[in-house]
């Protein structure tokens, strides 16, 4: 009964969606989009307009986004928290070949990630992409060196300080330029299409990159190693 109703509802929804396709695929940009496209360079001097939007124009969104990630790491850790005394998972160590390969690869993955977020204002990619690349490197490390613990201290410091730094940069904007997360008037905007340009945008994106990398790594580590509290709630 429920199934039939569900399928019926989906069919009707499909019909509704079909009606929406032409409207959604009309060409043209939104008014705000046009503004960003036209004035984005003048405002921020960052070649990558998406980065300008993400880090500057809609910076509050991004601060929120970073918070969501932090929150979900906290949440996952909170949900999968261990009972006192239960040990962490300690799976069998991986083969030495994987181990060595991982060590070699890890450095270059880290570099790639860093490159991505450092050039966030110039080329595609940025803090989030770079951060997740770093996390994939860490994943490799976790999988390869299962017997070893990740350096939680380092991750925690990185995570906390980069997040706090982000909020701090925003507050600097408030104090110096009169509005939270401001770019103009905080640092010189520099020249278009140069590495050292776009004011605080690269700084923020580096902080985001570090934070996202640390967070995603922690997330993976928790999900892999924290045993579910058995009968949590029985």
């Amino acid at each position, binding site marked *: 009964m429920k199934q039939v109703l*569900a399928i019926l509802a989906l069919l009707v929804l499909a019909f509704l969606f079909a009606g929406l396709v032409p409207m959604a695929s009309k060409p043209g940009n939104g008014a705000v989009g046009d503004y960003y496209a036209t004035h984005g360079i003048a405002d921020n001097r960052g070649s990558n307009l998406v980065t300008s939007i993400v880090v500057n124009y809609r910076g509050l969104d991004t601060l929120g986004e970073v918070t969501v990630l932090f929150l979900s790491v*906290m*949440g996952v850790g909170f949900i999968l928290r261990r009972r006192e005394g239960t040990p962490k998972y300690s799976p069998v160590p991986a083969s030495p070949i994987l181990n060595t390969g991982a060590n070699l690869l890890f450095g270059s993955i880290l570099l790639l990630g860093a490159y991505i977020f450092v050039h966030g204002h110039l080329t595609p990619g940025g803090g989030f992409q770079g951060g997740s690349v770093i996390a994939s490197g860490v994943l490799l490390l976790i999988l390869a060196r299962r017997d070893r613990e990740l350096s939680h201290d380092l991750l925690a*410091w990185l995570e*906390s300080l980069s*997040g706090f730094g982000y*909020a701090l940069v925003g507050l600097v904007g408030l104090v110096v330029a009169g509005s939270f997360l401001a770019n103009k008037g905080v640092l010189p905007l520099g020249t278009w299409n140069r590495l050292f340009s776009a004011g605080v945008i690269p700084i923020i994106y580096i902080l985001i990159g570090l934070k996202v990398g640390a967070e995603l790594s922690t997330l993976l580590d928790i999900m892999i190693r924290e045993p579910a509290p058995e009968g949590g709630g029985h």
Partner: protein
Amino acid sequence: MVDPILLIAVPLGIAFLLPLVDRLGRAASRWVHFLTLVFYTGAAASWALALHKGTVAAKDIITASWPPPVGINLHMGLAEAVILSLAGITGICAALYLVPREEKPSIRSIVLQVLLLAGTAGLTLTRDIFNMFVFLEITSISTFAIVLLGKEKKALEAGFKYMILGGIASVLLLLGIAFLYKTTGTLNMADMAAKLPALFTGGAAAALVFLFVCMVIELKGFPLNGPAIDLYEGVEPGVMALIVGTTLNAVLFAFWKILPLFGGAAWEGVIMTSGMATFVLGNLFATRQKKVRRMLGYSSSAQVGLLVFMLPLLRNHVVTLAALGLLLLNHTLAKASLLWFTGIHEEEEIGGWRGAFANNPLLRILFGASVLAIAGLPPFPGFWGKWYALAGMARSPYAWWILPLLLGSLLEFVYYFRWLKESARGVEPARSEVVPFSLSAPPAIFTAIGLVLGIRALYGPALGVSSQAWLWMWAGGILLAAAFLPERVQAGLSFLAVLLGSILLYSSGALALHTLSGFFTSLVVIGALVFSLARLGIPALHRNYHGLFLLLAGSLLIVLKTDSLLGFFAGWELMTWTSYFLVRQGKKGPAASYLYILFSGAAGFLVLGGLMTAVAGGAVTISGLGALRGNTALWAWILLAAGLAVKVGSWGAHIWAPESYSEAPDVFTPFLSGVISKIPVFAFLAVAAKIALPGVTTTLGTLDPAWVLGWIGGLTAFGMTLLAVFQDDMKKLLAYSSLGQVGYIVLGFAMMSSLGWTAALYHSLNHLLFKGLLFVTIAGVIYRTGTRSLSDLGGLITRMPFSFFAVLIGIITLSGVPPLSGFAGKWLLYQAGIQKGWYLLTALAMFASILAFPYLFKLIHSIFLGQLKREHREIREAPKAVVLSQWILIAGIMLLSVAPGTVLVPIQEAVKAFFGKAAFTTATATELATDLGYFHAMGVMSMVVVLAVIVLAGILFFLPKHTTKVKQLDIVYSGEVPPPPEEIQYAQNFFRPFERAYSPVLLPRVKAFWKSFSESVLSLAEAGRRLYTGDGQTYILYALGVVLFLVLFIFPAPASSSSKAPGGKTGYIVPVPRKARPAEVGVQAPRPGILPGGKAK
């Protein structure tokens, strides 16, 4: 002022740092947490205060130095500041509460709490729709995680279902944002609202449907509230309190911010219907709920539904922001407190709440106060909010919505007071409770905030609460707080307070008998004085008795004195709940008082309906009621009269009264019957009568509603008297008798003539005296014998001669025969009936009056005559204080008997002020004459006394010289004396033959009707709540169903046509021109010129 952005930035920054801070120790992180919350609350509260006072203007905040719509902007106004202050305080209290509740304390839970508050701030402040989405996700995710904080076993299931539905909600929101962006080319709310009407195409209409359904899910609207309600049941209540105080309000406010997008009559109807359906159905389903927390879940959903319902009204300036704010504040304060209570007394089922907090008077009072607050009773903020909202609605085209609103509110009474009833049951405390400070402080703080705000509102000068009334109420409040004092001390203090208060009232001239208010105030004073005196002899059952009694008396003074409709209703509802708690203190009080509060609540809502009709007609004060005309006047009168008729226990709605009168504490029943039953009478005379009542023209001729009321009164007098005859419980017998007597009074009022009113007023005083006398005496008898059953008593005349004499006087007065004062009342009433031409009714009243003889005889005979029971042989006379109060009442009766004119002359003045015509042709202290007859009270009395002296002298003179005195227990059977003196009991089945004769009339039809009525309501609730199957997928299907329903039925249009209609003329609905909405919401209007051309294509 602190920059509002810091309300977001600081908690975020701190949250990021907290894991590092925790390395210094948990104490450090708790301190940082606490200080962050203090900063947050302080910043928000300082904004709220400054905005309230008007010292600062609402502030627009731009971020990243870009004004909207290029950058994200925020807005700090009064509403935002209040919501965030509330969130901050909730955060502090919840943090305090949760410390001992957490199973495994973790830094992560602190981080989650901080981020929940940061998200709340963002959600409340932002004016950008996508930013709203981001902060909604922040609050949602912290909610999803933190619900697992406690040791609740069911939280996992509940949380998962909630999360999946929440996922659907965010998908809907994103879809909505996508299509809205395509249509308007902007994400700023105000900008979007401004551009939407011109481009109102199919895509936008669908987007609005998605947005709306997302909001319904987030705001726990019907029927998408299943998982949210599960959450209440399954999750640690401290966490739920935190959520109620933070995100729930923020999401509601977010909906308010995007409301300008939903233009047009169709959307208005959808939003209001959805909110109201949630309100009524949520409350309906809650009535069937045995699990306390689940019940609170339904209630929360319902309350938020009410607020959602009011949002379009707020937009249309029907309801003020203040009214809505008070309702929101009230809900947060009361609901959070109640949730905290369910964590302190951890019983899932309502039955487990027997004797809850019995050992903890503070918590007991706080718990009761929280229930009062959530039920919308004064002085709590919800009462004022509801009144202002209703008053706004009454004057608008939305007046009909008041009907379901009141219905839903009544349903709230049903389940909240059932909970209170259960908690009052069981005198033996279930266990000794030691409640740590951190658990009891949060509800105490919240209740205190509610009380302070509410009492401030009650001090409003327009309400006309006299300083005298305040004096009584403050005395009551102080005594309530000093409930730890010994009972005797309290009784003494209470008596002194009453004495002092009475003297002050007298010296201020408030007791002038020639005004209605003065007359009834005198009744209150007489009752309070005499019965407080009697109570010195009979200790009250419960420690809170004395404080509550003074509060009650104070509330009566409000009702009697104020001219404001709001003040009147506030006093009325105060009276309702204070008397409810007093009734509840009897041994079987909980059940009886439940019935009491349900009927009183219904009466209150009827009265409120009447007052709202009056408000709709433009009235604000009681004296302004006279200006009502036509149907407004008619309906105001009918609703008011119906409410008052329920409150006096008219036939058909009487079933609550005998129970309450008999189960109330014995020392309180006299006041209940003698004084409180007269307050509705006052309302009839001083409020309802102000309305110029038009006749109702029907096919059969003109019907006078007052005539109908007269018949109700007459039938009540008859029916209740009949029922009184067959009672074995003496308090119940007197209770039925009281109802019958008040029936006479109602009849007198309904005559709407000077003679009728004079009779009604005179009888009110008389009834207070003799019924007070009877109830006080009976209280003495019960105090000594410990039984209320007539068949257990007998022959007490030798042990309690004073009491016997008091009852004798009482029943003679009641029966209405000369020479005592009862006669004058009946005499006036019959004359008034004949004068009015209501012969049949007058005959009925006379017949009822005769019917009273049997029960009066039964009363005095069964208690005092016949054989003394073995176990009563050592009984002493009632306590001295009781006897003293008997004598005072007897003195009063004697005064009225000899010189009825001392009261009737001023009464005549009072009545003349209304009708312009005097009731009597001549009236002096001892002599009365009307058009129909003449009565010389002194003469009658003299004759009776002379006759009595002659008879007594004769008996003494002709008495045979040799008589054997027969003792009570000497019994002779045909000359044979049974060896041990045997007891013979008369009182068993006293009027059995009559009972058989009357049996067809006596069938408990009314009770059966109310029983089946309540059962059908409950079965409706039972059927309805099956909707919540507990299956997560079903809930998602509902969500989809609502989307499709709205698209297909409410906004039907071929979807494909939309793309061809950019002008919006053939879109889903025809856009209604909306005037300057951004300004209304207080959104910063987009700055012109920043967008090249500003066109969206």
